[in-house]
């Protein structure tokens, strides 16, 4: 079936270091979305990418959608303790059903 794999599963960084999480789909995606879930909270929508090769930025966060529309990445520059949480990618396939990745849990040490 359709799968979205996300790596790494966990990442611990020192405050100020950069962080990247990667997302790969077994099939071509219509679009990809990214969510952040703080500890004890629920996933919150961050952004959606639709076009092949698209790059979007939100302050220190940079999102990329691969040329083949099968992979994506989220890069955080100079992490802060407020970045702590689990980051999920979610790919939309032709069925209009979002398939979530397993998430990357980010821990930032001050």
């Amino acid at each position, binding site marked *: 079936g359709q799968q979205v794999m996300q790596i790494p599963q966990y990442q611990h960084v020192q405050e100020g270091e950069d962080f990247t999480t990667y997302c790969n789909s077994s099939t071509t995606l219509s679009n990809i979305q990214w969510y952040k879930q703080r500890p004890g909270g629920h996933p919150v929508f961050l952004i959606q990418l639709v076009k092949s090769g698209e790059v979007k930025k939100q302050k220190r966060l940079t999102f990329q959608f691969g040329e083949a529309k099968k992979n994506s990445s989220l890069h955080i520059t100079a992490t802060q303790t407020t970045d702590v949480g689990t980051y999920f990618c979610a790919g939309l396939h032709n069925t209009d059903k979002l398939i*979530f990745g397993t998430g990357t849990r980010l821990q930032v040490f001050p």
Partner: protein
Amino acid sequence: DVKVTQSSRYLVKRTGEKVFLECVQDMDHENMFWYRQDPGLGLRLIYFSYDVKMKEKGDIPEGYSVSREKKERFSLILESASTNQTSMYLCASSSYGYTFGSGTRLTVV
């Protein structure tokens, strides 16, 4: 802001009980979803609905059913709760991105 409200934050039920999880959204969204979230497994889609009285099975529908009698309300039903249904249940509605409710942590004992 879109608000998705789940009726209970925490629930403890006994094996074999019938359990209702309620979800209400206030932005007239047509699409609503039920996920469960388990450590290491991410979010898995149980059921979804694109319209009133319409429902579609997700990836793990076994042991669950849903009801969508009104556009704003999407209910998840565990016909006979089992211990392997202990989980965090998340409801979402969508137009652009998904808006999730705060979740219901269900424990089946």
